[in-house]
């Protein structure tokens, strides 16, 4: 049995149960004072909006240079993929794999994964509730790791600072990439996981 069927609402913030008040326009938690809803309002629409925005920004994030390495007067702009290839050329395969996973695989997987999750909740297909919740938890957990490349740039810009001898500047791609990461994190936060279970016909699994 779901709490919503028993006339109870779970607070988003402190998880306290509150009896539903049908007359109230806005209802607040009796324990922590946070506003409570049966389900997050317009969860699917808001998640779609954030997802589409980040999908658009995903293109400049991958095509524009995220940083430029200036060495002895010559500037070499590098994209995300360029950075991975450079690490492979150095023979640093484990680190190249980490950067590749964090900066290319994870953002792509998140965009596809959230879209699939939304589609499957709206159309009751093609995944089981258990698969959907595993996917949701994975996306929620992995999201922050895509900030890795942004932090790497911050460190490199600060430490490689030798004037005309060698210096590193951040590029426009980095701003687009940071926006993609933040927007997909927000999309995962806006999605209400309880919707996953609402659409299952039976309550048993």
């Amino acid at each position, binding site marked *: *049995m*779901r*709490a*919503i*069927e*028993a006339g*109870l609402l*779970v607070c*988003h*913030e*402190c*998880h306290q*149960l509150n*009896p539903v008040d049908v007359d109230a326009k806005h209802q607040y938690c009796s*324990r*922590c*004072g*946070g506003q409570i809803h049966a389900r997050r309002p317009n969860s699917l629409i808001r998640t779609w909006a954030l997802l589409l925005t980040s999908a658009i920004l995903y293109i400049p994030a991958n095509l524009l240079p995220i940083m430029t390495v200036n060495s002895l007067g010559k500037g070499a702009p590098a994209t995300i993929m360029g950075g991975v290839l*450079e*690490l492979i050329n*150095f023979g*640093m395969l484990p*680190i190249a794999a980490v*950067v590749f996973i*964090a900066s290319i695989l994870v953002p792509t997987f998140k965009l596809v994964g959230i879209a699939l999750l939304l589609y499957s909740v709206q159309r009751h297909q093609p995944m089981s509730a258990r698969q959907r*919740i595993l996917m949701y938890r994975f996306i929620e957990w992995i*999201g*922050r*790791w895509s*900030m*890795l490349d*942004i*932090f*790497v*740039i*911050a*460190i*490199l*810009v*600060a*430490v*490689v*600072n*030798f004037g005309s*001898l*060698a210096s590193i*500047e*951040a590029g426009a791609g*980095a*701003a687009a990439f*940071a926006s993609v990461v933040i927007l997909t*994190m927000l999309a995962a936060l806006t999605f209400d*996981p*309880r919707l*996953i*279970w*609402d659409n299952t016909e039976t*309550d*048993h*699994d």
Partner: protein
Amino acid sequence: MSDSPSEFSLSSLPIEQLVACHECDLLMRKPVLQDGESAECPRCGYELFSHRHHVVRRSLALVLTALLLYVPANFLPIMQLNLLGQTSQDTVWSGVIGLYESGMQGIAVVVFLCSMAVPLLKLLCQLLVLLSIRMDFGRSYGLLLYRIYHHMREWGMLEVYLMGILVAMVKLMDLADLSLGLGLFCFIALLLVQVWLEVTMSPHQIWEALSGEDIHAGD
């Protein structure tokens, strides 16, 4: 939930004896837990409760340790780079400044928030919440601060930053002479203490203590 006695009897129980899973909305009878035990949702596996021994006292010790480590972790050099006789140092703060001065103010703000501001504000919120429970003072502000803390949780990214330090070091190794700084060790210590604190400070115990349901919480 086929093993529950009857689904209809659940809704007739008083609200204090019930609990609903936050992630899948399954309603069930509230379990009674001993110290060190935890309960998971039978349907989706979300951790509902975990009950920890001396939660306030232990968390308070960890928060204070983390706050002491915060300043050296962010302002002592993480690494030094030596290139043809010139040296430069990197701290978490200098990374933010470097980005800001190179014209990327937006990213500088994001890095500042995720690696410095949010981790600090999270610790301060936790400290004030724990003090308000311990001293039995200003519980309503405690509730508000603990709500704010839960909204910030996702955005503190110390562990990702540490991985970033590692990647940056590998990229720089061939380029110049690299040496590790004391700041790196403080940063790792801060990260470990913070993870330990998140595990120790079990949210449902803190919420109950803040709302006065658990009168022995401050012990």
